[in-house]
């Protein structure tokens, strides 16, 4: 960078500018306003909730049948919500109480009708307290207000800094990211598919704690760590680095374990403790096989995912011979840094694999981070919290999303990993047309994991859960991953795509680039830890 240094050495602030500033400071009138008027405060932009995403992974481990208990005295507790830690609940709560039937907390957007549910919470997980992001509307529209806002903003930034481990997890997780993304997104070709690598990582990490022998070795191999201790540290760091609950952005990974009360006393306490402390897992115990316990699981998941995945949680049930259920959820909600103009959303044609449909397109014409690969175009859209962004990747004409999934360079870029030499990024004027989309999918992980050489856990003869319990014949019975991403805003203009590509060719300065995502495309949501929160293909934006 020695030449960059020499380049900049030649640059000096023009004398007229220096004079101008000194003159302005002399004046006692209002502070100098730029054309934008930013000196006297800042405008209140319309915040459009832009991306909402949720995902859950449920692993159910069946096993040898214990005695089937009949209906017992109703013992109940609320599945934990993820705010301030409520008072601890004793493990064996004998006192019968009415089972809550109201909608889970914090979920005002969906009316979740929950069946009566029963479960005993064995612990309370305390999430870190987070300084709230200052809300511009709370400050006066003048200099004092703006200064106060900046002060509070810095406090917020420092808080995040404290929580973050500062580590970039891209490298340690890259093997896992690549192999799982390619495997799972290829499973449902031609259909919308959404997958959360981060969520799956968390769930499999918990699973590794409960296993031993080959079962554990296969998992550690996929997760890319040498041993359990290393995995634990990584998982905890990942969890903390990703955590946001500051009133501006929500990014929460919630873990839970569901135990069978008939196996009470047969679980390895130290393993349960590690799961609670290092994986931020809530532990529940209840009557496996009883629909009321199923309802508790569903309620917990719906609560954590703000009702987004009800279609998938409805069918979940735990078998009578349950050894353990692992449920892992991720919820993400953030505003775009620059919202799309609602007035400019227009319906237009999207070419799905099965035919053309009409759907709403949002439009933006502004400077963006634009990237060309050898067979795709991409833009990166930032959220208000600049640690998060969405990458949109459009295959060139004649290239399919499957082709990109098989292309290591494209994947490397999509997953926020290293930058291959075939890629060029620039800040460019872009005319972007992006359909509003609401895509979701459910994946059967078992098939995919087996293809990735994690198989011992699925076979009762080989599965080894001895770290968790001595119950024989425990194996993974159900392994489900469901995810949904909703992106909305509004925007301006669709135009013909005239970009002519040559590997490495860069657009002329000043020529707007037109990017119209009117055929199947890939997206990812990247976060502060260098690990994508979500990856997916949009084949049909309205999921119709």
């Amino acid at each position: 960078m020695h030449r960059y240094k020499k380049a900049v050495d030649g640059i000096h602030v023009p004398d007229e500018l220096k004079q101008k500033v000194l003159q302005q400071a002399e004046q006692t009138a209002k502070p100098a306003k730029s054309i934008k008027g930013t000196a006297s405060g800042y405008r209140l932009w319309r915040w459009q909730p832009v991306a909402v995403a949720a995902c859950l992974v449920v692993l159910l481990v069946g096993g040898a049948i214990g005695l089937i208990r009949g209906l017992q005295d109703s013992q109940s507790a609320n599945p934990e919500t993820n705010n301030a830690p409520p008072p601890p609940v004793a493990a064996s709560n004998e006192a019968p109480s009415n089972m809550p039937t109201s909608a889970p907390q914090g979920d005002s957007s969906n009316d979740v009708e929950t069946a009566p549910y029963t479960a005993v919470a064995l612990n309370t997980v305390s999430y870190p307290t987070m300084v709230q992001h200052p809300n511009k509307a709370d400050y006066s529209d003048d200099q004092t207000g703006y200064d106060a806002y900046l002060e509070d903003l810095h406090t917020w930034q420092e808080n995040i800094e404290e929580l973050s481990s500062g580590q970039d997890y891209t490298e340690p997780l890259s093997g896992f990211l690549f192999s799982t993304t390619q495997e799972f997104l290829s499973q449902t070709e031609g259909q919308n598919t959404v997958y959360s690598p981060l969520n799956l990582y968390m769930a499999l990490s918990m699973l590794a704690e409960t296993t031993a022998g080959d079962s554990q070795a296969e998992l550690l191999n996929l997760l890319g760590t040498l041993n359990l201790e290393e995995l634990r540290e990584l998982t905890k760091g990942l969890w903390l680095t990703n955590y946001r609950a500051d009133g501006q952005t929500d990014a929460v990974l919630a873990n839970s374990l569901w135990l069978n009360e008939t196996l009470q006393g047969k679980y390895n306490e130290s393993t349960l403790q590690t799961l609670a402390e290092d994986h931020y897992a809530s532990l529940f115990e209840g009557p496996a096989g009883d629909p009321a316990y199923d309802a508790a699981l569903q309620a917990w998941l719906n609560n954590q995912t703000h009702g987004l995945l009800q279609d998938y949680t409805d069918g979940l049930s735990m078998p009578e011979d349950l050894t353990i259920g692992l449920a892992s959820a991720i919820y993400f909600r953030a505003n775009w840094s620059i919202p799309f103009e609602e007035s400019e959303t227009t319906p237009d044609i999207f070419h799905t694999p099965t035919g053309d449909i009409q759907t709403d397109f949002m439009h933006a014409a502004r400077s963006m981070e634009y990237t060309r690969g050898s067979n795709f175009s991409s833009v990166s859209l930032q959220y208000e919290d600049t640690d998060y962004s969405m990458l949109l990747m459009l295959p060139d004409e004649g290239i399919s999303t499957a082709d990109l999934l098989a292309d290591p360079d494209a994947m490397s870029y999509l997953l926020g990993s290293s930058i291959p030499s075939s890629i060029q990024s620039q800040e460019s004027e872009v005319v972007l047309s992006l359909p509003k989309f609401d895509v979701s999918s459910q994946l059967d992980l078992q098939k995919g994991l087996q293809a990735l050489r994690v198989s011992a856990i699925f076979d009762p003869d080989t599965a080894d859960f001895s770290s968790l319990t001595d119950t024989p014949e425990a194996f993974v019975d159900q392994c489900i991953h469901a995810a949904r991403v909703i992106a909305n805003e509004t925007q301006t203009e669709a135009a013909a795509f005239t970009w002519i590509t040559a590997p490495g060719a860069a657009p002329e300065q000043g020529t707007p680039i037109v990017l119209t995502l009117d055929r199947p495309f890939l997206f990812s949501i990247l976060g502060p830890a260098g690990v994508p929160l979500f990856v997916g293909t949009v084949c049909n934006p309205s999921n119709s």
Partner: protein
Amino acid sequence: MQQDHRAKAVEQWGDMVWRLALARTANVQDAEDVFQEVFLRFFRNEQKFETDEHRKAWLIRCTVNRSKSLFASPWQKRTVPLETAAEIGVEDEYSEVYSAVLSLPAKYRTVIHLHYYEDLSVAEIAQTLHMAEGTVKSQLSRGRALLQNILKGDTDASL
């Protein structure tokens, strides 16, 4: 703050703020706006600062923050391009690399400028901008990789 103190401050810190503002905005007019905002704010807050180190960190953070809000304003569609590097003082033999850096997406330009021009370490950048060190590291390495792609095969030494 007295006028001659202000003049001294502009002499001492002006180039640093100006160069960073250019790197951030890649646009002379926007950089001018940022420059003015930063110094006016600096003059108002003079009593807070004890050391030059503190002043420097504050000025850098302020310049970065002020140019952030530019990106999000309705006026950012203004596309007055960066005048050729020569017009702002860059010597001809270095203008290619300068233009290359300024064509990078904004977040990469920032850390590259702070690291390679202002000689801030990763930790210092993280501390000054309230970012995670991991983020700084990854932005630096991604920025360099992108730069190398643009300059096609030039080694680090020539950057």
